[in-house]
């Protein structure tokens, strides 16, 4: 049984060598802070990836004619899009669904021609939050296009300039026309930034002779965990049976793996925190135990049982551990809370004020991260440090348990 005086003595013992206790607390607190800060950043970055995937790029569910994704052939189209979209949009889990066209073209702003990709988009849908044009306020006018900022830099295109586009229609005809560059854009989809010429879906259908046809349909669900069930329901629709329907996890398993690895990274940091905690606590307790041998001997001489000394040491260990975790958690919370609104610009860590976003597998991953914590982050640290504290106390506790009063009092 744990006595109140055991806790009181253990607590006050922490103040006997304040510098040493402070160092142990610091080691644990810094570890816990590192754990929370790293996890916060990791969650924030994973959110960026998830949003980039399920937002502008792939959506929660996407569908296309089998083979299109590998071959990107112009004629592998989804036909009868209007009726298909009506069915899809009628599902209660669907937030929005947009059709897209991707067509390789040559683009000539002046004399020279450059390879580019025309991206035909359902502008009202893509202008919504998480769409490919989520920042766009006004609709595109007739014969107006948007140019990805990297492509614009490469071909030296400017706002208001005319640009000639030459490609191939799905019927084999030459598709060409002259457009006005309405704006240079930075899209969450890297393909748009690198090579994209964005026009309205209707203009693209007309240019490439794709009446009521598109290359793929991208669907966003109301809740992120509805993707699997929605995909399952849509696969059962007769009108969609000829299409390949994939959830985002099925579409890009490599990125899902990357997200899992990011989760494991948190555990790696946790292990490092634990090592720091064990070292800090064990060192403090060993020194404190050996310094107090005489006192332990006296307590045994008075009639204390060895178990009481063991309890005292273990309580000291837990107090140091839990206090350290609380301090570290407060610091970690402070960091995450302080940066959750403004975010952290990881680009500036590279020594630049503004760096371009990171592109990975066609995704444009913003380097501006909004840290966020989950409940387990705190609990994991608390439980782990409490356990580790007990483990760290085993050695000094076993020393105390074996003490003979007279031998101890002679030291």
């Amino acid at each position, binding site marked *: 049984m744990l006595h109140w005086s055991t806790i009181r003595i253990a607590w006050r013992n922490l103040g006997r060598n304040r510098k040493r206790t402070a160092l142990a607390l610091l080691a644990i607190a810094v570890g816990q802070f590192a754990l929370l800060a790293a996890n916060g950043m990791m969650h924030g970055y994973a959110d960026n990836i998830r949003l980039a995937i399920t937002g502008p790029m792939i959506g929660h569910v996407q569908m296309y004619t089998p083979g299109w994704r590998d071959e990107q052939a112009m004629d592998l189209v989804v036909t009868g899009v209007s009726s298909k979209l009506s069915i899809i949009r009628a599902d209660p889990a669907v937030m929005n669904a947009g059709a897209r066209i991707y067509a390789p073209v040559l683009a000539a702003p002046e004399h020279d021609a450059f390879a580019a990709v025309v991206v035909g988009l359902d502008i009202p849908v893509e202008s919504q939050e998480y769409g490919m044009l989520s920042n766009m306020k006004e609709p595109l006018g007739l014969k107006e296009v948007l140019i990805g900022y990297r492509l614009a830099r490469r071909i030296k295109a400017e706002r208001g300039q005319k640009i000639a586009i030459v490609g191939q229609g799905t019927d084999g005809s030459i598709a060409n026309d002259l457009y006005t560059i309405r704006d240079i854009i930075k899209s969450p989809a890297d393909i748009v930034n690198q090579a994209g010429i964005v026009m309205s879906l209707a203009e693209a259908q007309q240019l490439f002779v794709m009446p009521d046809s598109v290359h793929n349909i991208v669907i966003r669900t109301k809740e992120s965990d509805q993707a699997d069930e929605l995909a399952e329901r849509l696969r059962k629709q007769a009108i969609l049976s000829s299409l390949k329907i994939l959830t985002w996890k099925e579409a890009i398993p490599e990125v899902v793996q990357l997200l899992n690895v990011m989760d494991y990274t948190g555990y790696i940091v946790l292990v490092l925190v634990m090592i720091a905690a064990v070292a800090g606590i064990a060192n403090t307790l060993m020194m404190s135990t050996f310094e107090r041998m005489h006192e332990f001997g006296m307590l045994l001489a008075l*009639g204390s049982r060895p178990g009481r000394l063991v309890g005292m040491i273990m309580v000291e260990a837990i107090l140091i551990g839990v206090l350290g975790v609380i301090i570290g958690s407060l610091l970690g919370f402070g960091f995450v809370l302080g940066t959750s609104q403004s975010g952290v610009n990881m680009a500036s860590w590279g020594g630049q004020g503004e760096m371009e976003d990171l592109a990975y597998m066609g995704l444009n991953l913003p380097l501006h991260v909004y840290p966020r914590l989950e409940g387990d982050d705190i609990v994991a640290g608390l439980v782990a440090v409490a356990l580790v504290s007990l483990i760290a106390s085993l050695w000094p506790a076993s020393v105390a348990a074996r003490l003979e009063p007279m031998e101890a009092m002679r030291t």
Partner: protein
Amino acid sequence: MTVPVIEAQELSKIYDAGRMEVQALHDVNMTINKGEFTAIVGPSGSGKTTLLNLFGGLDTATSGSLSVVDRDIALLSKRQRADMRLHYLGFVFQAYNLVPVLTVRENVEFVLELQGVGNERSQRAREVLDELGLSEFADRRPNELSGGQQQRVAVARAIASRPQLVLADEPTANLDGENAEILLTMMRRLNTEHDITFVFSTHDPRVVAYAQRVITLVDGCVDKDETKSIDSC
């Protein structure tokens, strides 16, 4: 009627000091009765502390028999010896040995808590501190007290558990004359008023003067055993 509290027969203690053995006690025979105020004297290395340690069950004899408060020490386990110390013995050490992180009152209560005393713990601690004139120091930590005050607190702690026997190892060794006298007067009063048996080792002539019985050890053997009349102190 005399009731023996300590009975030692042919008690010997040999320490193994590497290649050689050191005989600290040699066939000591001794009986200390309830209510006695006994000083064990002798030069350094004569075996005084060893004898007290054996009496307190802090160490075990190499040979001979020893009974303390009706218990054969040799038959007791480590845990039973700890229980005997807790419930029947009080200790006063040369270096005070109070728990530094506890206040005076908490130090006294600590032993009572070990004994399992419940609600009346603080009442009993207060009574003991009142009786020994230590109430004003109740909330101070040991490092805020003088040596003499600390030793008086050590005595308070020793008697708070209402022991039959108090063992004191050189209790005045670190005290000046005035404090030594205060301590001895207090111990003697507890001896007579509460019938607590006191056995203390010393080579301090002031302490010897207070003792009712003086046992002299020389080279681990009882050299003299003198009982004075109570009036003499």
